[in-house]
């Protein structure tokens, strides 16, 4: 009866229904195997967990795991600090490198098809099991590159932290390239969806390519950039060979107990979210400035 009176409400209700219906299956799986376990670890983090014949015994210890991790566990704190520094260096570099590569790959060159395939290739390595073999054997670092640039000669002229950052980036360069696969793909899709008429209009107005890049391409790509930043932070953070993850795995397998592992996992998670929020804030701010 409502149908004839207020078709609009009816429409949105069907929208709501189909919304839930389409999500439902995914939601069930997600709740059961991702969300609920995460909540469970939160509970565990306040308890000492012992396993006895397949059952778990919890004994409440309050915040002591957190206190211990934040005040006594020097290795863990050091790991967190390293992680934060690494992320702050990685994210901008990966974003910029993948944007540049995406633009190169998007230009009409002979053989771009081949290059596109090659640049997307590392996706299957970084998420695969063979990555650890590479890192063990030193394939991921490029031995010559550090000798290429004489860092010590720069020591007097640039600040020390900048020098450290440079040194780090050159030694990790291959890793950075390997982690850019999906970001390049996402940027390429973004670039291809640009309105070509806009460039023509800009050209008629006498804009140079440089100006077109800053005034047209970059603002239009902003959502894509934010997406890539989030994706990079996430991929780096849950990468299974990430030192903190290895450490937490160590805690889990006896060395500290499952409760303690849960607490450290949550601390790590919170640090990660803080960094992610920071990254998004930086890039969102840029968006606002451009729009004005």
């Amino acid at each position: 009866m409502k149908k004839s009176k207020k078709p609009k409400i009816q429409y949105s209700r069907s929208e709501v229904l189909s919304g839930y219906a389409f999500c439902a299956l995914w939601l069930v799986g997600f709740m059961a195997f991702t969300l609920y376990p995460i909540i469970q670890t939160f509970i565990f983090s306040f308890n000492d967990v012992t396993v006895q014949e397949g059952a778990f015994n919890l004994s409440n210890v309050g915040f002591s795991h957190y206190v211990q991790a934040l005040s006594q566990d020097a290795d863990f704190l050091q790991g967190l600090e390293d992680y934060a520094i690494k992320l702050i260096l990685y994210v901008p570099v990966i974003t910029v490198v993948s944007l540049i590569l995406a633009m190169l790959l998007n230009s009409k060159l002979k053989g771009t098809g081949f290059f596109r395939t090659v640049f997307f290739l590392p996706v299957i390595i970084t998420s695969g099991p063979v990555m650890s073999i590479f890192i063990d054997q030193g394939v991921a670092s490029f031995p010559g590159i550090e000798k290429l640039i004489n860092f010590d000669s720069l020591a007097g002229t640039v600040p020390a932290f900048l020098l450290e950052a440079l040194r780090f980036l050159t030694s990790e360069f291959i890793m950075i390239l390997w982690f850019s696969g999906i970001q390049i793909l996402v940027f390429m899709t973004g670039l291809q969806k640009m309105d070509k008429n806009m460039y023509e209009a800009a050209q008629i107005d006498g804009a140079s390519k440089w100006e077109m890049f800053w005034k047209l391409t970059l603002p239009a790509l902003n959502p894509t950039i934010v997406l890539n930043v989030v994706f990079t932070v996430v991929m780096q953070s849950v990468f299974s060979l990430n030192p903190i993850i290895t450490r937490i795995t160590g805690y889990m397998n006896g060395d500290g107990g499952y409760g303690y592992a849960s607490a450290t996992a949550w601390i790590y998670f919170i640090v990660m979210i803080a960094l992610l929020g920071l990254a998004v804030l930086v890039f969102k701010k840029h968006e606002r400035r451009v729009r004005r």
Partner: protein
Amino acid sequence: MASFQGKKINPKHFHISQLKFYIILLPFAVFMVLPIIYIFTTAFKPADELFKFPPSFFVKNPTWDNYKALFELMAGSSVPASRYLFNSVIVTVLTVIISIFLAVSAGYVLSKKNFKGRNVLFEINTLALMFVPIAVSIPRFIIIVNLGLVDRFIANILPIIAMPIGVFLLKQFVDQIPDPLIEAAKMDGAGEWTILFKVIIPMVRPALATVAILSFQSAWGNVEASTLYLNNESLKTFAYYITTFSSSSSSTVTQGITAASALIMFLPNLIIFICMQSKVMDTMAHSGIK
């Protein structure tokens, strides 16, 4: 540089002015391919080359010894290797199909429908994406036990079909599909399923292929289920079977076997990737979204 495509003044064939692009792209491309070559060469290295430090990149005396040792071990196992392989194929195929379907339907409604809790759901998904994956393995185990899935084949599939990363990527891609397109489909009398299959899926194919690759990898390389939830050997997967070798035999042989099995585990990834990537690249070129 991006403006190049707009003006259509690019030469169709190689021109000397393009050389600068190649000069930049080629070295990068080499670094990208190196690891793949390395996987192949390592698998055929004899023992003395495997232990050389620093490791050499190319193999000097290629040998099948690693594979001989691997197949000998396989022949000696109680459950035939083909059984593990069969399990893995079933698990992988089902996981890829189901996870893509769930991710695209959830991605579609999370992006294009207005309903209560939509944004909250997506935010939770994004946050869950970031949680330390290893830390949830024990609560997951409890759930598997409570659902009575221990030693059931489905325990291989169920925990990994709801892929937060898939929903995340697909939602972002569906966001870029203009609403008028969906409204036009609705005007023409398309139902929700028709929209999903005829409008959304064709347009997000690059993202689908990416999600397919990621979900293939997580399913194919997954050892969590076999190690934790399954006791019955005949239900376990090939990835698990392979990992048992690297821990069970003597150390000199182990290195070779690990290298050989790494190649075996890696090859399907490469094949899937090569099949999928043409889809990724093709549809990106003419995705019809302006």
